[in-house]
């Protein structure tokens, strides 16, 4: 019935039936890890750098996919959490905090706190209003850090040393850092996949599919969304922390709205129905950007055309293609 279908903003129920195939996501994580090891083994530092960047953005896309795909909340401000996580590491470093086992929880906490606080406001809105107000809060964070001259302001902040792990300087080697990012990505993907399968996962999906029915079943829809949004903010901030560590640099540009848009493209490209889609989308988009830039000066034009083509081919096409077109 059109009435009920309209309440479900993910592609029609092809997805839920096959949602129990997290194997795709694990495959992507495995490939990213292999690319890093290959890069290190064959003396190709660029592969390693690229794979690390992909892992970082896959983590951020994973965070967005959790609220966007499962909760139906189209956040247009997730770059803010990326930036907040990065600044947690950058500012922590400025004050002599260089232990990753402290920096990561700090970043997650900052991300969760900003998500919980802004969530109290943004989650009272719906649809286009939600998109605009998440964007507004992200831009707010962007401008705050632009004017924060004590920490580099517009120019950003350079991290002079990489953090330590229990006092050991292991992340000096790029491969260790890269595999560290992949390990955390795997852990977070495993955790979030479990959460999606948990009672809360069902509750969250229910709030997306039919809000009125969810309320009538006794579900506090606002609270469910707030929990999901906070969790997502924490995960995105973890990605931001690693972005700062990997690049050795933090700048307000991390929070730019264009980056938020990029994260949405990643999630939509890979398919919103399951978390693994975000990992695929992030990988494909970043490889496309990199590959097209090698071929043409006007790579952004080509990227745009390819994205339009993919959207016309129906959202989630990549994942279906990979699955052998069973449902294509």
């Amino acid at each position, binding site marked *: *019935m059109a009435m009920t279908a309209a309440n479900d903003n993910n592609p029609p129920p092809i997805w839920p039936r096959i949602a129990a195939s997290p194997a795709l996501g694990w495959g992507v994580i495995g490939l990213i890890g292999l690319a890093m090891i290959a890069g290190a083994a064959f003396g190709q530092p660029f592969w390693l750098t690229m794979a690390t960047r992909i892992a970082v953005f896959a983590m951020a896309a994973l965070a967005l996919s959790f609220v966007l795909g499962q909760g139906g909340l189209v956040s247009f401000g997730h770059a803010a959490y990326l930036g907040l996580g990065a600044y947690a590491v950058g500012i922590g470093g400025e004050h002599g905090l260089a232990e990753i086992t402290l920096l990561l929880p700090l970043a997650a906490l900052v991300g969760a706190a900003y998500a919980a606080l802004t969530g109290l406001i943004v989650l009272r809105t719906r649809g286009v209003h939600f998109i605009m107000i998440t964007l507004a809060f992200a831009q707010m964070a962007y401008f705050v850090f632009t004017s924060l001259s004590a920490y580099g302001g517009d120019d950003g902040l350079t991290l002079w040393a990489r953090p330590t792990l229990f006092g050991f300087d292991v992340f000096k080697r790029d491969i260790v850092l890269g595999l560290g990012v992949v390990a955390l990505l795997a852990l977070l993907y495993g955790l979030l996949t479990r*959460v999606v399968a948990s009672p809360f996962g069902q509750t969250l999906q229910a709030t997306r599919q039919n809000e009125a029915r969810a309320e009538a079943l006794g579900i506090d829809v606002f609270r469910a969304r707030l929990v999901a949004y906070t969790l997502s903010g924490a995960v995105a901030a973890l990605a931001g922390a690693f972005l700062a560590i990997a690049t050795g640099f933090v700048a307000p540009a991390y929070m730019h709205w264009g980056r938020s848009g990029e994260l949405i493209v990643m999630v939509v490209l890979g398919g919103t129905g399951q978390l693994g889609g975000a990992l695929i989308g992030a990988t494909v988009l970043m490889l496309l950007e990199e590959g097209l830039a090698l071929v043409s000066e006007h790579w952004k034009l080509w990227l745009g055309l390819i994205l339009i083509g993919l959207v016309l081919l129906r959202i989630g096409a990549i994942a279906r293609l990979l699955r052998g077109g069973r449902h294509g």
Partner: protein
Amino acid sequence: MGEPILRLEALDKSFGALHVTRAVSLDIRPGEVHAIIGPNGAGKTTLINQITGQLTPDAGHVRFKGHDVTGQSVHERARLGLARTFQITSVMPAMTARDNVVLAIVSQSRQGFRLWPDAQLRAQGRAAADEALATVGLGRRAGVIAADLAHGERRALELAMALAQQPALLLLDEPMAGTGKGETERLTELLRGFKRRIPMLLVEHDMGAVFALADRVSVLVEGAIIATGSPAEVAASSAVKTAYLGEDITP
């Protein structure tokens, strides 16, 4: 007769100049099926929305199980045991019939915010869900995605979800709307099976169903209740006949 399950005290609601609910008082006793009938535009939906909490009345009180719930949200009232079906069938379209009912059970038992899967809880939920589905005749359709169910089946599913909430009061908003004759009879029979066990507030156009199920009938016209009584009394009332402009409301 005991304390009423639901008591509406002088509810009043206006939208601008439109006075949609006028001093409506009504109660539902334990075990009673109370029907509300009235012509289109009488304010039945607005009244229901004030009972469920989607709308807050301008004046008056809603008491449910002895609590004043006038200021409470929809989900708070639902947790107290107010279950409902919607005029336009409302289920989770992308979930299976079984998962829809499990959702109702899990939410009712306040386990819906657990962040980790629990195999035992899930097995219990599924067993209870299958039982509820069997009760409404959907035993063999448990694994079907709700969007793929026939209209009548989705109606039955919605009822199974409401029953799984172990309701203290079941609010049925035109359950027979859009169903065929055979389906209406089947649903009526099904609901009759829950009489005495579950108090119901039934808003319905189908007079056959109303007369078959209701212990008392209240007639809502232009936002006000003009008569309350047994189905026979209401059918005989001249005020009701006038309000319905000569329509014959006997089944």
